C-alpha cells in the first residue's frame, strides 16, 4: 500500500513537472490527444473539428488504433482520452479509469419489407449467418431461399455483429460480401429473400429491422438496454477529466453533437449524459 502511494506520488510529481515544462512551451494545455477505437473515430473526429472551430487556439488530435490499444494508451498516459467500443474487462477496471459513455451502437438485422418474418431469436440469426438455415421456411417464413448479405472484414459493424451473434462460430463463406452499409441496405431493399445487418442509425423505411429475441430494434429498447445487439461507445480518462479534456467531453455529450454528429455516424445518442 505504501509502495503504491509512493508510486502515485512519483507519478503525480512527474505529471506536474511535465505539465510545468509543457506550460513553458505552450503545447499541452492547448492540445488534446484522443486515441483508440476506429468505431468511435467518426464521432471523435467530426466533434474535434467542430470543437476546434468553437474554441480557437485549441487542438484536438484524434486517431484510431483499436479499442484495446486506446485503453492501454490512456492507462499509460500517452493520450488524454482513450476511446473504446467495448466495456472494460474486469482486469481493466482497477486501472483508475473513468468511463464516460458517449453513444450507443446498435446493430439491426434487416430484411426486405415484403418478408412476412418480423422477428427471430438470436440463435436463429446465428444459424442463418452460419449458413445452417438456408430457407425462410426454416424460421416460419415463406418457401424462399435466404440471400445472405455480409460485410467485409475491415468493417467494425461486422466485428461487433460477429461478437454479438456468432460468438466463436464463423460466417457462412458463400454469403455475398459488400464493402459498405449503403450497399447492404440497398441490396436488402431490392431482393425479397435477403437478410443483412447494419447500424440501427442507418435503418430507413426501405428495409425492415427484425425484432431479436422478441425485442424490437428501436431507440427505446436500445436506450433501456433490452435490445440484445447493442453496445456503448466509451471515452476513458485517467482520473476525473479536467481542463481541456473535460471541455471536449462535455462538448461531445452536448445535445448539438449528440443529435447531429452521433446520429450522422449511424449511432444513437446516450440518454442524459450516459454516466
Amino acid at each position, binding site marked *: 500500500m505504501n509502495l503504491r502511494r509512493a508510486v502515485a506520488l512519483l507519478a503525480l510529481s512527474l505529471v506536474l513537472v511535465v505539465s510545468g515544462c509543457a506550460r513553458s512551451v505552450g503545447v499541452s494545455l492547448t492540445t488534446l490527444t484522443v486515441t483508440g477505437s476506429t468505431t468511435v473515430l467518426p464521432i471523435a473526429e467530426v466533434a474535434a473539428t467542430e470543437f476546434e472551430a468553437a474554441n480557437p487556439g485549441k487542438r484536438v488530435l484524434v486517431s484510431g488504433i483499436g479499442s484495446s490499444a486506446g485503453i492501454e494508451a490512456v492507462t499509460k498516459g500517452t493520450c488524454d482520452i482513450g476511446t473504446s467500443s467495448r466495456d472494460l474487462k474486469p482486469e481493466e477496471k482497477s486501472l483508475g479509469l473513468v468511463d464516460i459513455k458517449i453513444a450507443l451502437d446498435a446493430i439491426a438485422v434487416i430484411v426486405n419489407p415484403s418478408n412476412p418474418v418480423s422477428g427471430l431469436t438470436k440463435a436463429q440469426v446465428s444459424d442463418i449467418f452460419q449458413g445452417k438455415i438456408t430457407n425462410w421456411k426454416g424460421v416460419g417464413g415463406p418457401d424462399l431461399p435466404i440471400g445472405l448479405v455480409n460485410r467485409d472484414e475491415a468493417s467494425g459493424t461486422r466485428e461487433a455483429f460477429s461478437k454479438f451473434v456468432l460468438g466463436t462460430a464463423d460466417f457462412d463463406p458463400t454469403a455475398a460480401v459488400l*464493402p459498405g452499409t449503403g450497399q447492404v441496405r440497398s441490396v436488402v431493399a431490392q*431482393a425479397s429473400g435477403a437478410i443483412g445487418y447494419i447500424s440501427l442509425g442507418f435503418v430507413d423505411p426501405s428495409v425492415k429491422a427484425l425484432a431479436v429475441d422478441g425485442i424490437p430494434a428501436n431507440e427505446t429498447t436500445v436506450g433501456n438496454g433490452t435490445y440484445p445487439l447493442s453496445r456503448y461507445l466509451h471515452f476513458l480518462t485517467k482520473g476525473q477529466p479536467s481542463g481541456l479534456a473535460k471541455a471536449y467531453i462535455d462538448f461531445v455529450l452536448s445535445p448539438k453533437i449528440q443529435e447531429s454528429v452521433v446520429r450522422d455516424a449511424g449511432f444513437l445518442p446516450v440518454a442524459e449524459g450516459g454516466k
Partner: protein
Amino acid sequence: MSDSRDPRTGEPIPEMCADPKSAENSPRPPARQALMTISKATYFKEAALKNLFLVCACVAVAGVALIFLFVGLEGWPIFAKVGVFNFLGGLKWYPTKQFFGILTLIVNSMLAMIGALAIGGPLAVGTAVFLSEVASPRMREIVRPAVELLAGIPSVVYGFFGLVMLRPIVAHVFGGLGFGLFTVWLILAVMIVPTIATLTEDALRSVPDGIREASYAMGATKWQTIWRVLLPAAKIGIIDAIILGMGRAIGETMAVVMVAGNARVIPDGIFKPFLTLTTVIVLDMPYAAGDHRTALFGVAIVLFIISMLFVAAIRVISRFGKEMS
C-alpha cells in the same frame, strides 16, 4: 538561325537543345560537312529529339521493371513461407486464420473471363464485321464512335451501372441477390467489346480488296465471303484481339468488385457470389497486415504473370502468322 524556325509557319521553334552559338563557333568536321546537307543546328535538334524519345521509351520499360521488382520483393516471402504449391493450389483463402490458398481465386477469375469472352467475343467480332464489311459509310460514322466511347467509360461507372441497374434485374428474373458470375459476365462482355471490335476491324480492313473481289467473282455471296474468306484471312489478327480482350477481362477490378458479391468460395452456380484475384486485393488491402499483406502482393505477382503470358501468346501467334503468310 533560319534552321531553328519551322519551315511551314516561320515561327521560331522553342528548342532547348539546339544551341545556335555552338553551331556558329565550333568548326564542322570537314568530311561530315561534305556529306551533310543539314545544318549543325538541325543536326543537334534531331539528336536531341532522338534522345528524348529514347528517354520516353526507357520510362515505360523502367516503369514495368520497377513495378515487377517492387511487387516481386513484397510478395515473394509468401511463396517461401507457405510454399508455391500451397499458395497456388490451396482452396482456402482466410488470411486472418493463416490460410493462404488462392486456387479458388484463380478459378473464379478464369470463370469470369471465359464467360465474358463467350458472350463478348462473338458480339465484338460481329460488330467488327458489321463496321468493316456491312455498314454504309454513314452508319459506320454512328456506330464506330459509339463503340469507341464504350472503351472510354471508366470501369467504376460500369460497376455502378451493374450494381444499381443490372443486378436488380438479374435478381428479379432469376431470384437470389443478383450477385454472381452471370452479372459479371454481362458487364465484362460489354467492357471487352471495344478492345476486340476495334482490333478485329483493323485486321479485316488489312485484308486486301483483291481477295474480296476474287471471292465475289467466284460467285460467293456476301455471307460466304465473310465467313469463308475474310474471317479466315484475318484469323491471326482476331486471335490477338481476343487475347487482349481476355487480358482486359481478367484484370478488371472495380466493375467486378461491385457485382461479384465477393464470397471466398468457388460458386456452385452462376448466380452465386464469388471473389477473384483482382477484387481480393481491393477488398483486403484496407486492413491487411503482415503475412496477409504479403499474400496480396503474391496475388499481384500471379496477375502479373498471367498478363505476361497473354502478351507472350500474342507475340508467338503473330510471329507464327507472319511465317505462315
